[in-house]
């Protein structure tokens, strides 16, 4: 359940930087970050955690049908999310709320999904190439690989210009690694040498099944068999997540082919609000990961660099404002016109859609007091 000798860690749980042969290639990425960027890492982690906890409360209060917590996985997501350049394309799984936020997706879109008002619906082209959540495990890995094949066919990568060359990053979890689609996407990515990064968040649990049931070997070793280099990182270390993802994306965008990152992290909460982890997890494990918390160590790091109370208070205030705003907007959400379900099943006219829409309208109108 814990880290291995191969795990790349740049920031200890005490908040100190690790300087060693193993970290030498990655530390320069951190040295290039401005103070504001370093603060942003913290800001995003704290704000999303507060949002996440309050969204779970909204579910308990009957406002959402379900919530999918990202509690504990903030560093893996924030670091890799900031590593993606504006021209890069991000294919999430369904738990990457903070990356959605970083790429400009209003978190209400996710609230609406889990309230039962939509299946996503945002346009990735208008949201900095952040694609829709995919709920079938691993399906998005093939979409990402196909997309990366298209980037390659367009000649939009490996031109030598890191400010325009495009790369693709796809997120998935430890359970998904057992899905055939993930293996097939590794085959295609290796075969066509696509400009993409596979980002595995190993949060140790696929609902109630531990990662040991998915794999007898560490998952970062699996891509090696496909001809794709793999690296394991401390996924609760936002600096490692940022630096290693940046390095892998740089390799991908410069024509060096796909890479694979296994981020060791922990799903501190339930799989979803329908789950009860007390039935299958023990306290010792939770204690280990609580000590490895991504936000605690990063706050220590920032304070050691001289960051003062004012900043941390400001972040707390932003988190409070966001959660209050989300709560207010959630309570104000209306319904969806029933005719919406027919509107975009096809992009071109379809007689069955027309007939069924008309039938439903007439049926609704047939009730006393119904629409005329």
């Amino acid at each position, binding site marked *: 359940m814990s880290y291995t000798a191969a795990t790349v860690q740049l920031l200890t749980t005490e908040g100190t930087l690790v300087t060693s042969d193993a970290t030498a290639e990655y530390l320069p990425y951190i040295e290039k970050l401005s103070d504001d960027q370093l603060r942003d890492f913290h800001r995003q982690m704290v704000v999303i955690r507060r949002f996440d906890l309050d969204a779970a409360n909204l579910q308990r209060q009957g406002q959402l049908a379900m919530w999918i917590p990202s509690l504990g996985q903030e560093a893996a997501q924030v670091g890799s999310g900031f590593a993606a350049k504006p021209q890069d394309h991000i294919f999430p799984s369904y738990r990457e709320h903070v990356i959605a936020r970083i790429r400009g997706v209003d978190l209400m879109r996710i609230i609406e999904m889990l309230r039962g008002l939509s299946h996503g619906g945002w*346009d990735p082209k208008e949201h900095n190439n952040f694609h829709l959540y995919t709920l079938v495990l691993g399906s998005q890995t093939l979409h990402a690989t196909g997309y990366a094949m*298209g980037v390659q066919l367009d000649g939009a990568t490996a031109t030598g210009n890191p400010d325009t060359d495009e790369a693709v990053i796809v997120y998935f979890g430890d359970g998904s690694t057992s899905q055939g*689609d993930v293996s097939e996407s590794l085959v*295609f990515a290796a075969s066509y040498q696509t400009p993409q990064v596979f980002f595995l968040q190993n949060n140790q649990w696929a609902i109630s099944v531990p990662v040991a049931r998915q794999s007898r070997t560490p998952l970062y070793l699996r891509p090696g068999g496909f001809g794709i280099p793999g690296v394991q990182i401390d996924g609760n270390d936002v600096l490692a997540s940022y630096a290693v993802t940046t390095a892998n994306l740089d390799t991908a965008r410069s024509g060096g082919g796909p890479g694979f990152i296994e981020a060791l992290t922990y799903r501190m909460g339930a799989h979803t609000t329908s789950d009860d982890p007390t039935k299958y997890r023990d306290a010792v494990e939770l204690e280990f990961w609580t000590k490895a918390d991504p936000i605690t160590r990063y706050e220590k790091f920032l304070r050691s660099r001289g960051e003062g109370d004012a900043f941390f208070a400001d972040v707390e205030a932003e988190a409070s404002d966001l959660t209050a705003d989300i709560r207010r907007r959630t309570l104000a959400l209306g319904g969806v016109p029933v005719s919406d379900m027919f509107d975009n099943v*096809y992009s071109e006219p379809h007689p069955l859609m027309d007939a069924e829409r008309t039938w439903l309208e007439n049926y609704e109108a047939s009730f006393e007091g119904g629409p005329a």
Partner: protein
Amino acid sequence: MSVENLSMAKAINLGLRQSLLADSKVLLMGEDIGPLGGVFRVTEGLHAEFGDKRVLDTPLAESGIVGTAIGLAMRGYRPVCEIQFDGFIFPAFDQITTQLAKLTSRHHGSLTMPVVIRVPFGGHIGAVEHHQESPEAYFAHTPGLRVVSPSNPHDAYWMIQESIASNDPVLFFEPKSRYWPKGDVDTAESGSPLHATRVVREGTEVTLVGYGPMVAMLLQAADIAASEGTSVEVIDLRSISPIDYEPIIASVQKTGRLVVAHEAPGFVSVGSEIAATVTERAFYSLEAPVLRVAGFDTPFPPAKLETAYLPDADRILEAVDRAMAY
């Protein structure tokens, strides 16, 4: 008018070539479709003409082919996937039904999915298990997909191009048993839009409806019926989803009798759907119940039994006789 006498395989080949020439975003992808030209040679010569970046020999993984085609379509490409045989489409079933079919809806219309999946299908080729099946009903049952099947070289030439031009995903079922007989192809004019049903033989007493490989069988049955004094109208469905019902309803209003035929098993089938809808929409015109002639509800049998399993002209005529007896 420019007419050529071509096999369906060659007609599809020429249709694919036209689409590749017309739009640089059109790509072909599949197993063995490159230098070999596909196991049925439908893509023969296209790799040599258009190269690796337009005609992609893929790894041997059907979910991978369709899943990456989806990603390519998200990027603005118009992939045409070849599934080598009907019975091998099932590894891709998840990507087709949970992703391809739903992505336009999931994106509230901001994303289109112009992906064509070509599927050589049906029996009469004496092949081993998984190589003679008719899985079209699974896809017709899935909202978000369009499903078509040509019965002759002319339609095949045009329908493949129209399918590629469609912004919705299209399952394109190619009748293997009809790949090699030649027919006239008018390369100047298609004659019908993609989803139009067509009356291919006029008659007055019984309407026969079928698609793909069954149309030739229906025409053969109609000839025999005519020699025995029964006038049969034959309708080529062409489009399995959506179904263009107007010509079928008009025909049934004239004949009062309908027989629907396909190679696929009859239980919960395209034939069942047509029977239910025609019964609803033309009840007072019917002189007899709508009858289905279909493959049996068994796994496709070993090839030596396929002629007993698949509907032939005699089984169609047996149904015509039953309809006429009411």
